[in-house]
């Protein structure tokens, strides 16, 4: 009867394959009208006036600017720093910054009206990219040992700079919400596509000056997130709520693809610099690393992205002397934000290209160089974390080499240049450092006459939350998977389980649910069969109806972290991964293609192997897109290619064969040994592909995406 480790049917799968699942744009409410955002057309400047064409008929429209924020509310998007307004007041700091909101019952009239609003600015000088940025929004340093001493021990010092571009999450369902005002005029309900209902609730409370009983947030079936629906929905929900309060009617705001692309968050562009001291035999003795991220115009979540980027900047390699300096710089571009991997893909792209450079300079095989320096149990990371148990850096590399070589194919004579590249990486599961303690997440279980129902704020965004949580609880209670249902993530129904981010939903929240299940078991007393479980739970329900068992995050005893010094156990556990990529480059068109990608990843325990593989395949392909195709072209501070015709994500024709192998090296504090899986697959493919391009063409690219233009320039410059 055990279901952990088995590929049970996805809990909400039937609704999805039949088209019955209701996404936000599929819903409508009586009296509902449509909202639209008027946005800035300059990258930086003072707003002189907002003018409405007096000749236009404004009857039936609701218009709202920052003055509509009720007394007691604040014009601040609740995040880390209080710097970002919901609606601009007298200045704008980036293109597409929201200034005015407008709503009408007829979407066509709404579109017409927008053309009759004119905003006048006094433009000010703007900083449009990382290269020119000087204002530091956040800085941190991680150090270990004594860098100078390290360089003194080195036979050689190898330097390199590496660049990654912005990337759009490109969930196929754009951002959207519906805000429904309460009849009392003092409450609001927001439905929407989102990862973190409690983030949205907190933002709405601050904006409207309401308490948690007055703001209800419900996640609807969500068509992909990848980080893009972590913090952004707070802003959109705030806008819809302001319009709904002003109009006294439900307001739907669903972005079209263009608006979603030009206005919402992207992966932080990054510049990574390495200066590394190595000994002749390849031993790393000193690593000096600079990580610079382009945060855009406001702080948003950038400090946390920087933290993860910096901690992962050494890659999975030991070195006695390390200094990582991380910075987020401000530019007058739309704020960058969460995207699967959260900074770690950028910084590990840097180190993985740099490792190949070191190997080349020393004349050592890149695999051998990695084998020499990869973490093993007992090693100490740059933050001083001693890695014990569940360290699989060597194993994933070995297994990837075996798996990849086995599938070798005969060389074709077609003029294409071929190469193979490798990357090894790791990814911390859960929030960094003391984050999980601060979150103090809760999740629980309630009994129903027929079933148990999970009460959990974690959202299903395609990754399989519902299925995997139900499996964990079913096996913990020794009852059938089918007996476990899940309440919809609704802040009026479920506790705050923390955000659905950071590869924490299985390892951290799954563990909390497991503990709630154990509490339930205690209350029931011993039972031998599922039927006995049911009898006992009915008895218990008769005595105590509406019985809930809510558990809270409990820090595994051995974890410690000091935020001031950036020292300690950065993460409870790490996933370990290795990619090997085969690449073909056409010497005439300069198009590079990844033809085969092996991904071997240690996730502790695959609760649902099929879903876990799906996560790895999907994440890997996103990284292939980032490496080769996906280029955010900025012009005057605005994305110039805001359409799917010219922002290219991989189609079936661009997809390499993806070979996945799961390694299960259990983490004792994860449910059934599980660690995180969602983000790790994005960390390695881009570097493996660029290392393969180097082998195929002899040119070294240090920036992605590796478009034909970049490859041509590099090859012609030889």
């Amino acid at each position: 009867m055990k279901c952990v480790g088995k590929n049970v049917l996805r809990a909400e799968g039937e609704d999805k394959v039949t088209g019955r699942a209701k996404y936000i744009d599929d819903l409508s409410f009586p009296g509902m009208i449509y909202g639209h955002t008027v946005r800035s057309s300059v990258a930086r400047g003072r707003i002189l006036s907002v003018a409405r064409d007096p000749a236009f008929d404004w009857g039936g429209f609701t218009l709202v600017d920052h003055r509509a924020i009720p007394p007691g509310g604040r014009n601040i998007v609740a995040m880390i720093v209080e710097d970002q307004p919901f609606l601009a007041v007298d200045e704008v700091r980036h293109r597409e910054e929201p200034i005015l909101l407008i709503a009408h019952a007829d979407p066509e009239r709404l579109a017409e009206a927008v053309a009759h609003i004119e905003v006048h600015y006094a433009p000010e000088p703007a900083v449009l990219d990382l290269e020119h940025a000087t204002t530091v929004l956040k800085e941190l340093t991680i150090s270990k040992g004594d860098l100078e001493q390290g360089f003194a021990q080195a036979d050689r010092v190898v330097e390199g700079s590496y660049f990654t571009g912005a990337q759009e999450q490109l969930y196929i369902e754009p951002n959207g919400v519906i805000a429904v005002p309460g009849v009392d005029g003092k409450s609001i309900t927001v439905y929407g596509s989102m990862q973190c209902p409690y983030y949205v609730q907190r933002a709405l409370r601050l904006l409207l000056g309401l308490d948690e009983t007055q703001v209800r947030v419900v996640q609807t079936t969500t068509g992909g997130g990848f980080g893009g629906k972590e913090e952004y929905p707070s802003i959109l929900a705030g806008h819809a709520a302001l319009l709904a309060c002003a109009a006294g009617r439900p307001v739907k705001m669903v972005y079209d693809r263009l608006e979603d692309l030009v206005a919402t968050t992207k992966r932080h562009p990054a510049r990574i610099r390495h200066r590394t001291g190595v000994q002749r035999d390849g031993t790393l003795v000193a690593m000096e690393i600079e990580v610079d991220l382009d945060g855009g115009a406001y702080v948003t979540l950038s400090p946390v992205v920087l933290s993860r980027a910096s901690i992962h900047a050494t890659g999975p390699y030991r070195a006695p002397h390390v200094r990582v300096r991380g910075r987020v710089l401000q530019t007058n571009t739309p704020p960058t934000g969460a995207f699967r991997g959260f900074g770690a893909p950028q910084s590990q792209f840097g180190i993985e290209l740099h490792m190949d450079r070191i190997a080349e300079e020393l004349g050592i095989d890149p695999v051998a160089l990695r084998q020499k320096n990869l973490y093993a149990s007992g090693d100490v990371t740059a933050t001083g974390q001693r890695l014990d148990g569940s360290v699989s850096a060597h194993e994933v590399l070995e297994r990837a080499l075996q798996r990849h070589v086995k599938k070798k194919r005969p060389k074709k004579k077609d003029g294409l240049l071929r190469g193979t590249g490798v990357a090894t990486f790791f990814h911390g599961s859960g929030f960094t450092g003391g984050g999980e303690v601060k979150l103090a997440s809760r999740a629980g279980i309630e009994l129903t006459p027929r079933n148990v129902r999970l009460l959990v704020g974690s959202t299903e965004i395609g990754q399989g939350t519902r299925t995997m949580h139900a499996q964990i609880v079913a096996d913990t209670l020794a009852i059938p998977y089918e007996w476990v249902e899940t309440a919809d993530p609704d802040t009026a129904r479920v506790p705050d389980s923390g955000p659905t981010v950071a590869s924490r939903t299985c390892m951290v929240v799954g563990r909390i649910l497991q503990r709630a299940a154990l509490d339930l078991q205690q209350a029931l007393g011993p039972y031998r069969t599922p039927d006995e479980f049911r009898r006992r739970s009915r008895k218990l329900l008769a005595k105590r109806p509406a019985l809930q068992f809510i558990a809270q995050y409990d820090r595994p005893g051995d974890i410690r972290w000091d935020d001031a010094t950036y020292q300690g156990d950065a993460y409870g556990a790490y996933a370990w991964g290795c990619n090997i990529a085969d690449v073909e480059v056409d010497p005439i068109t300069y198009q590079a293609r990844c033809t085969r990608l092996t991904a071997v990843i240690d996730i502790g325990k695959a609760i649902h192997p099929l879903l876990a593989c799906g996560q790895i395949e999907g994440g890997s392909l996103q990284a292939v897109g980032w490496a080769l195709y996906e280029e955010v072209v900025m012009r005057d501070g605005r994305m110039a290619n805001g359409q799917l015709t010219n922002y290219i994500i991989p189609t079936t024709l661009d997809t390499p064969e993806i070979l996945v192998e799961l390694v299960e090296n259990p983490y004792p504090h994860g449910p059934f040994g599980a660690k995180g899986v969602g983000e790790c697959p994005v960390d390695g493919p881009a570097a493996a592909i660029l290392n393969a391009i180097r082998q195929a063409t002899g040119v070294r690219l240090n920036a992605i995406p590796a478009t034909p233009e970049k490859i041509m320039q590099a090859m012609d410059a030889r």
Partner: protein
Amino acid sequence: MKITLTLNRKRRTVDVSPLERLLDTLRGALGLTGTKEGCGEGECGACTVLLDGKPVNSCLVPTAQCSGAAITTIEGLAPRGKLHKLQRAFLECGGAQCGICTPGMILAASALPDRPTREQIRTGLAGNLCRCTGYEKIYDAVGVALGTKK
């Protein structure tokens, strides 16, 4: 203007404005929200339906041009309460994650020949974007449903 068409084997008459997109008619007046909009510009395939048996992007088709045509949406692929073999295979093989691409993907796949090769599957689905799966499990699902040899 009034348009009569066959929707999921039933004759329906709808009143539409001249340039109305088939996608909006389906989701609006006809009340079938299983067909999704991902881009509105013919690039993502989320809005794929069958028009006289052939997959089309319903965001690019004016309803006015569908007079007399037979349209199949995800709601009409299988008899009520039953799953089409593609739907079952997508469910069992992990072909649907977030599910937003799934209705379009399944309809595009339903137009493939029997026992398609992996190459035929890839080519047949080239107009349908999926950001979640990396397509591998979609190929598997289509292969299982349509009897592709391993």
